[in-house]
């Protein structure tokens, strides 16, 4: 199964990445290539929408952790939104939900 990444600019100037498909060992490098340059900017605001992410494994979590660490280094913010129950459980088990901001707004306005 494939992974599609839709990159949009939000009205407030932040970056919005909407991920659909499966995030696993085969597709995670694609997200890594897209998200790391975005968070590697001083005070960048990046939102990751996972409402159409049917499946995520630990490699996907690894990419999000790497993005989170980089974002902290550059004083930016990383928000993850619309987790499916399965992904939400993974965030809870790994303790990621305690340190990464999770939003549940269904649809953000985009330009």
């Amino acid at each position: 199964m494939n992974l599609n990444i839709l990159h949009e600019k939000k009205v407030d100037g932040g970056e919005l990445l909407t991920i659909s498909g499966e995030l696993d060992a085969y597709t995670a490098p694609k997200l890594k290539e897209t998200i790391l340059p975005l968070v590697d900017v001083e005070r960048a605001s990046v939102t990751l929408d996972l409402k159409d992410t049917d499946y995520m494994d630990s490699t996907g979590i690894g990419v999000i952790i790497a993005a989170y660490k980089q974002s902290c280094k550059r004083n930016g913010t990383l928000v993850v939104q619309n987790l499916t129950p399965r992904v939400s459980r993974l965030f809870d088990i790994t303790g990621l939900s305690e340190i990464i901001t999770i939003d549940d707004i269904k649809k953000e306005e985009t330009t």
Partner: protein
Amino acid sequence: MIDHKELYQHYRKLLIEHMERKSEKTLYNGQLFSRQMMENGVSPEDVLSLHIDVIKEFYPHMDEKFQSAFDFLLEAMIGYGLAYREHQNLRYKQRQLESEIDIAADVQQSLLVGEVPHYDFLDIGVISRPAKRMSGDYYHFVKDEQNCLSVAIADVIGKGIPAALCMSMIKYAMDSEPEQRTKPGAVLENLNRVVEQNVDPSMFITMFYGLYNESQHRLYFASAGHEPGFYYSSNKDEFQELIAKGRVLGLDRSTKYREYEKNIDVGDMVILFSDGVTECRTEKGFIERDEIVRLIRQRMHLSSQEIVDGVYKELERLQDFQLRDDFTLIILKREV
């Protein structure tokens, strides 16, 4: 190397046979010949040049245009010859790499496979199988002087060689701090610092660490984002999630790990596993945790080792014998 003259005679014989008594068999001889040539590293253009030489012998007055056409074909085959040699070269390199991986896998196996300690009061079963040649799962058991058992199960993100290398680091970090074995939270805090300092930012490790105290029959444990195991209460005859909260190793340097405890009565079980067990995928979707409970329940009359072996076989069958992820399953059952 094959002698050119011999090769020429051999090919000549096969070709004449075919030209004079054309049949399925004489054609098939051509196929056998090509296999023999490949085994001996003879390139396609060399075979073609052999063919041209034999034809020239039969038709010394061959039309010059035919001869030119042959020369042209010979040139056209050179690219195939190069590709063939490159393929041979890659095969050789691949064999070399494979033998290196075999050695690495053996080294890892010798690191991983610690002896499972024996206790009269505790029946221990364990199975650990890599999805590829090397495993990113890790488990260990240590029996200390006070007859306490420490048990650890860890899963390094990813599979294969990178995960295996990282796992070896964990193994040494754990071996180097024996005095802390009795404090699960402290063990994880130290490992977290090791991982955070040494590993790529997208790499992380989940781990469950427990200490079974024999005199109290109590399990002290802590978890670093590891897939929750199960606790089976024989009194209530029910399975519960063995919940312990804690961040994965390598996420945040200052993480503290809370220590939990659980009394273990006779007949109770503690079931620990890596996410290779719960992430089993079949045609119908993912295996639910309830399904794992059902598979264990069916086998509760058996020894712990028979249970883990049986559950593994069943899940392997459900996935058409293709593990997607490293698989580790541990069962501790209190006997007396």
